[in-house]
Each structure stands twice: as structure tokens, then as C-alpha cells.
């Protein structure tokens, strides 16, 4: 790969910046572009599953497959928009939307009990039985005042997680 930042014009950078609502600085976008080009080994303009999984730290993550569904095959502009949820400058709303997107695997705006079970399965692996997982989910929904068969909307998510101490900040290295 040649000198990658020269392949991004000032216009491109500004376009990407406005697409992610100004969350990333221009230097961060250049840095992300260099990273995108390193991951996208064959220069196709999007990153494949195998190329993401070539990063061992990512491949180890229990939620790697769910994130792949969101991140695979997107172009650079979308890539930056998706990652902007992790910037310290992102609002609570943007972080919430990302978390909701991870849960809502079919994208219909509702998170069902089986969606929550699915994420719990990824997070706990074989260390919880299916019965224990159901127990946790039913108990958690019950305690929060939801019936076990109901579907959570984005607003429900916000109501529950507004008290959470979201640790969702990733620093983009800028040289």
C-alpha cells in the first residue's frame, strides 16, 4: 500500500466527517483510513470476515460474529459512522443505538427474549446451561417490570440502560 493518506482528498475527509456528524476529527479519520487500508488487504473498498478475523484480538471477542454482521462489507464512510459510537465525543443516544443494533439481529426495531438469549449465549458460552440462561433472562425482565414474552423497543432499552455506566470509549491513535 502506498502512502495512504494521499489517496484521501480534503473533500473526501469532510464528506466522511459530516456523515459521522462531526464526531471524529479529521486526523482521526485519516488514521482510521490508514487502518481500513491495512485491514482491507486486497484494496476492494470493504473488509471481509476473514480480514477482520485476522486480527487475533478481535477474533477472541465473544461478540465478534455479531459485530461482523454489522461491519462486514461496509465501505469506509459507513465504517467510520459505525465506529463513531465508540468515540468519547459520541452522545449517549449514539452509543445506545449501536448497542440496540447489536441485539436487534433482524433489524425490525424490536428486541425479543430470544435475541437477548442469543447475546447471552455468546457471552457465556458453555459455562451456563440453557436453563440457567433462561432463568437469568426471565428474572432480569421480571425485576425490571417486563413480562417474559414481550419485545423491547429502543425506548425500553434507553429506560433500562440510562443508569448504566457505559464503558464505551475507544481512542483512535493519531500520530
Amino acid at each position, binding site marked *: 500500500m*502506498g*502512502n495512504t493518506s494521499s489517496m484521501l482528498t480534503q473533500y473526501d475527509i469532510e464528506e466522511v466527517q459530516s456523515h459521522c456528524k462531526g464526531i471524529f476529527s479529521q486526523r482521526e479519520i485519516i488514521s*482510521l483510513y490508514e*487502518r481500513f487500508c*491495512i*485491514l482491507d*488487504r*486486497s484494496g476492494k473498498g470493504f473488509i*471481509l470476515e*476473514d*480480514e*477482520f*478475523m*485476522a*486480527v*487475533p*484480538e*478481535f*477474533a*477472541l*471477542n*465473544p*461478540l*465478534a460474529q455479531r*459485530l461482523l454482521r454489522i461491519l462486514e462489507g461496509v465501505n469506509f464512510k459507513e465504517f467510520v459512522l459505525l*465506529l463513531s459510537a*465508540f468515540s468519547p465525543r459520541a452522545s449517549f443516544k449514539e452509543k445506545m443505538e*449501536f*448497542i440496540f443494533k*447489536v*441485539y436487534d439481529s433482524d433489524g425490525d426495531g424490536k428486541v425479543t427474549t430470544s435475541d*437477548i438469549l442469543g*447475546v*447471552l449465549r455468546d*457471552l*457465556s*458460552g*458453555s*459455562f*451456563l446451561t440453557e436453563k*440457567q440462561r433462561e*432463568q*437469568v*433472562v426471565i*428474572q*432480569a*425482565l421480571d*425485576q*425490571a417490570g417486563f413480562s417474559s414474552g414481550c419485545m423491547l423497543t429502543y425506548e425500553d*432499552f434507553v429506560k*433500562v440502560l440510562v*443508569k*448504566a*455506566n*457505559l*464503558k*464505551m470509549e*475507544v*481512542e*483512535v491513535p493519531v500520530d
Partner: protein
Amino acid sequence: MGIQRTGVKVSNQLRDSSLFRPSQSEVDLYQHDMEDFLLDSAAEPAAPHQNKLLLCDLLDISGVLSEAASAIVDDSFTRCFKSNIPEPWNWNIYLLPLWCLGVIVRYCILFPVRVLLLTVGWIIFLGAFIPVHFILRKHDHMRRKIERGLVEFICSVFVASWTGVVKYHGPRPSRRPRQQVFVANHTSMIDFIILEQMTAFAVIMQKHPGWVGLLQNTVLESLGCIWFNRTESKDRHVVGEKLRKHVIDPESNLLLIFPEGTCVNNEYIVMFKKGAFELDCTVCPVAIKYNKIFVDAFWNSRKQSFTMHLLRLMTSWAVVCDVWYLEPQTIRPNETPIEFAERVRDMIAKRAGIKKVAWDGYLKYYRPSSKLTEKMQQKFAESMLRRLRTKTSDEDLSTSME
């Protein structure tokens, strides 16, 4: 076509990663440090807070997502294999012609001279090696001595063909009554040539295709080099035996091993494979550091073939590097081979001024073992079970109080 040549082939390999499941010893090797590394950085599961909803803790996956996002944005493993693209300095009206002049000198004057030098060197070498190899069949000791000298000669010719400026520090390797093995950090196949011009080592390498393979089968075979195939997990045991036999044999050449197992970009050093450290012999560490100002000597085997790599070196000004022969080390009484490997890696990293990384170099070729993911899953599962238990005990308490 070598496996390392095209990016597509490598990704196919990753898809078939089940074929290249790491052997238990390999997993143990990096797990030792990896666990500490990961568990330190893993987000602590939220302490059960009376007023915090279980649902809140359950749905809050922000920590895990951040770890994944952090790995996407930057990770220490990919950094180990990043080629350094030199900053263009010819951006000026008078620097540009200077640079053009430099290009002309490098490609039209230096390069032909170097090719000529290399050709003459090879003619002399082959002219001496082939006869000696066949004529002195019976006089093994004499034959080996001459072959060693000839190999040192041709390596010096190679080094001269890139205008190699190599500064050697420390006592030169020599045969001692004690059994010994040499280990060094690995940046490119030229590491081998640079060390070989000083001492004719036998080395353990991956078999390559093309003209390199031909050289391996003929010249390097006579030095007593050992071959391995990194995709064969059973191969490790066989190779371990060969190594042991070689070290014990007093007639064999000094053995050089690159425990990283793959080429790394000379800014970082990845985990050492413990094979070299469980041979019951002294380990002599060698540190190599290239000066990047002249040329980046990192051979990115996925991006270019060795021939292209050599051509790039031959059209650069010079290859400047330092080689330090460090104090020989033996395994301490209470040390495991993995700890011994770490100690030696630490010495080499400090001397060469490169950063240590807790990754196994073979992760270039296969995916990490699921054991590490399972550790994280186990931690999470336990915290959830704890919450379940406190919830039920709270309920018992409240019902009993009513």
C-alpha cells in the same frame, strides 16, 4: 506459488483454520502471557449493586463491544507486521532533482555493479563448491571445513551486493566443548545471510519454492540444515528430535534458530516458540537491529516474494544493521522452558531496543485458540450466577421477613 505469496491464499487458509489447530504446547506457550494480558484489560463485570437492575447489567455489553472496537481500530499484533513506508522527502523544487539523481545512481550505476559482483561471486562459489563437494567425498572433515569457508564467502558477497554495513558486537560464536544453540530475532531471510557471513551456521527453516528451495536442497543441505513444515502439527515432534540429535553431534555445525517462527518488522518481537529452549543445552542469544533510515529490511512475505525483496535491497543505498552476540544462558533450576524463552526474549528485546508483544507469530496463519474466549465467557457466566444466587437469597430473606 508459495503459500505466503498471495493474500487470497492466506485467507483461504484462515477459513480452513480447523486444519491447523495449534498443538497443546503451542497453546500453552502463548497462553501463559496472554491470560495476564487479556484478563488485565477485560472489563470487570459490574459489582452487584442493590439498586441496579439485573437487566441493566445483562444488557450492558458496552465493555465487550469496546474491546472489539479497540481491536478493530488498532491492535498490537497487526502492528508487528506493518511495513514502514518512508516519508517522501522529495517534495521540493531542488530536492526532487536530487532524488531523481539518486534514483539514477542507484538503478543505473550501483545496481549493475552489484549484479556483476553477485554473478562473479556465484561463479567462484559454484566453481569451488561443486568440485569440493564431489571430490572430497571421502574426507568429510576437510570437505566440511572448506564448504563452511565457501558459504561464509558467498554470504559476504551477498552482503556486499546490498552494501551491507554490519557492526558485530560481542565475542564471535565458536565451537565449545559444551552443547549450544544460537537464537536470534527474525526480520527477513537476510538475517540468516548476515549471521552466516561471520559463522557458517546450520539453520532450521521452512522449505521454500523456487530458486531458494534449490539452494536449500543443495548448499544448505550440506551445512546440516533442518527443514520443517509449519502447517504440519505432527511435524513439531519430529523436528524436535532432529534438533536434539544435531546439538549432541560434535561434528555438526553450530545451530541457529529463529524462535519467533516468522518474520516480524524489527520494531516488535513476538513470543518465542519453546522448541529451542528445551534441548538441554546452552542458549546463546543474538540480537539484530536494522537502521531504518537506509532501508526497511522487513520482509513482508505476504506482500512480496524473496526475489523482489532482494531486488529492493539491491537498489537501495545500503543495509545498515547491528548484531549483538549476547551472553550465553542456561536454564535455571526452577525455570520452565517457557520462562527461559521469555527471559532470553527479554534480553534480546532490551539489547535491540524493540518492543515485546504477547502474541504468537503463527497467528498470521491460523486463528487464536478458543481457550482464551472461553476464559472470558467463564468469568461472565460466574458473575451472572452470582447475581442469580444473591437475587434468590434476597427474595428468601424478604419473604421470610414478611
